[in-house]
C-alpha cells in the first residue's frame, strides 16, 4: 500500500473500532439493518394494498387500467439502468478510479431525475383527470361500454397508488440527494479502496428503492387487462 493510502486509511478509522475491517463490516451491517426497517415501513402500505385488493378486486382492476403501462414500464427500465450505473460506480470506488466513480454517479443521478420526471408527468395526468382522492375525486373508466362498477373502492386504489408511489418518489428524491453528496465528497478525494463504505451504503439504499419499484410496478400497473373481469 502506498504511504498516502495508509494515511487515508488511518485517518478514516474511528476510535472505537479495532481496525478498518471491523469498521467497514459494521457499517455495511448497519445499512442493511436500516434497510430492514425500510422494508417494514413500506410493508405496512403493502399490507393495506393486500387487504383492499383482496376485498375489492374489480375496483382495483378498473383503477389500474387508468395507469399508463408504457410510462410505468419505461420507469422500471430507467431504474434498472440506474442500478447498473450505481453498481458500476461502487465498483469504481473499490478499484481506486474516482473519476470513473463520479461519472457513473452522475449518470445514476440523471436516471433518477428521469424517473422523477416521468412520474411527474403521470401525476399531472392523474390530477387533471380527478383521480386524486378527496372531495374532487371523480372516477370514470373512459370506456362507455364498461362503466365503473365500484367507484368508491376505486378511490381506495388511488389512495394507495398516491401514497405508495409518493413515498417511493420521496425516497428517490432523498436518494438523488445522497448520490449528489457522494459525487461532491468523491470529487474532494474522500474515498479510496480502503474507505468507500459510504459509497457502498448509498448504493445499497439506491438498489433498495429500485427493489420497491420492482414490486410496485406489477401490483399497481399490471393487475388485469380484462374489462369487467
Amino acid at each position, binding site marked *: 500500500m502506498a504511504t498516502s493510502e495508509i494515511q487515508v486509511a488511518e485517518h478514516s478509522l474511528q476510535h472505537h473500532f*479495532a*481496525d*478498518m*475491517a*471491523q*469498521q*467497514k*463490516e459494521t457499517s*455495511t*451491517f448497519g445499512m*442493511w*439493518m436500516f*434497510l*430492514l426497517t425500510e*422494508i*417494514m415501513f413500506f*410493508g*405496512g402500505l*403493502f*399490507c393495506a394494498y*393486500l*387487504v383492499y385488493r*383482496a*376485498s375489492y378486486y374489480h375496483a382495483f382492476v378498473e383503477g389500474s387500467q387508468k395507469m399508463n*403501462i408504457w410510462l410505468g*414500464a419505461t420507469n*422500471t*427500465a430507467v431504474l*434498472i*439502468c440506474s*442500478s*447498473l450505473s*450505481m*453498481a*458500476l460506480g461502487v*465498483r469504481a470506488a*473499490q*478499484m481506486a478510479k474516482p473519476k470513473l466513480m463520479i461519472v457513473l454517479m452522475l449518470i445514476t443521478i440523471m436516471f433518477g431525475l428521469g424517473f422523477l420526471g416521468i412520474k411527474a408527468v403521470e401525476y399531472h395526468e392523474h390530477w387533471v383527470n380527478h383521480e386524486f382522492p378527496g372531495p374532487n375525486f371523480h372516477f370514470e373508466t373512459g370506456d362507455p361500454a364498461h362503466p365503473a362498477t365500484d367507484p368508491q373502492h376505486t378511490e381506495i386504489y388511488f389512495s394507495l397508488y398516491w401514497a405508495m408511489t409518493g413515498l417511493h418518489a420521496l425516497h428517490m428524491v432523498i436518494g438523488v440527494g445522497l448520490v449528489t453528496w457522494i459525487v461532491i465528497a468523491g470529487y474532494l478525494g474522500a474515498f479510496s*479502496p*480502503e474507505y*468507500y463504505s459510504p459509497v*457502498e451504503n448509498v*448504493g*445499497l439504499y439506491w*438498489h*433498495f428503492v*429500485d*427493489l420497491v419499484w*420492482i*414490486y410496485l*410496478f*406489477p*401490483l399497481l*400497473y*399490471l*393487475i*388485469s*387487462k*380484462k374489462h369487467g*373481469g
Partner: protein
Amino acid sequence: MADHSEHTDYVGHIIPARIYYMIWAVLMVLTATTVFAATIELGVFNIVLALLIATIKGTLVVLFFMHLRYSTKLTMVTVVASIFWLFILFSLTMTDYITRAWSTYTGH
C-alpha cells in the same frame, strides 16, 4: 465472534463488470416479460406470475447489485428475517379478512 476471523478483506470482493451487465440484461428481459404476461388473461395466475417475476428480479438485485451473495451470513439472516416478518404481518392480518365471511349466517 468478535475475533475478526470471519471478516472479509475490507477492500471487499470486487465483482467483474460483466456480471453486472448480465444481471442488467436479465432484469430488462424480465421487465418486458412481465408487461407481456399481463396482456394474457390467466385468471388468478396473473398475480402469481407477476409476483414470481418480481421476486426473481428482486432476488437478482439483492444478490448481485447489493452484494448479498458475497456478504456475511449475518447479513443474509437479516434479509430473510425481514421477509419473514412481512409474511407475519400479511398472513395474520389476512386471517381476519379471509375468515370474516365464514361467520355470516346467510345461506351456507
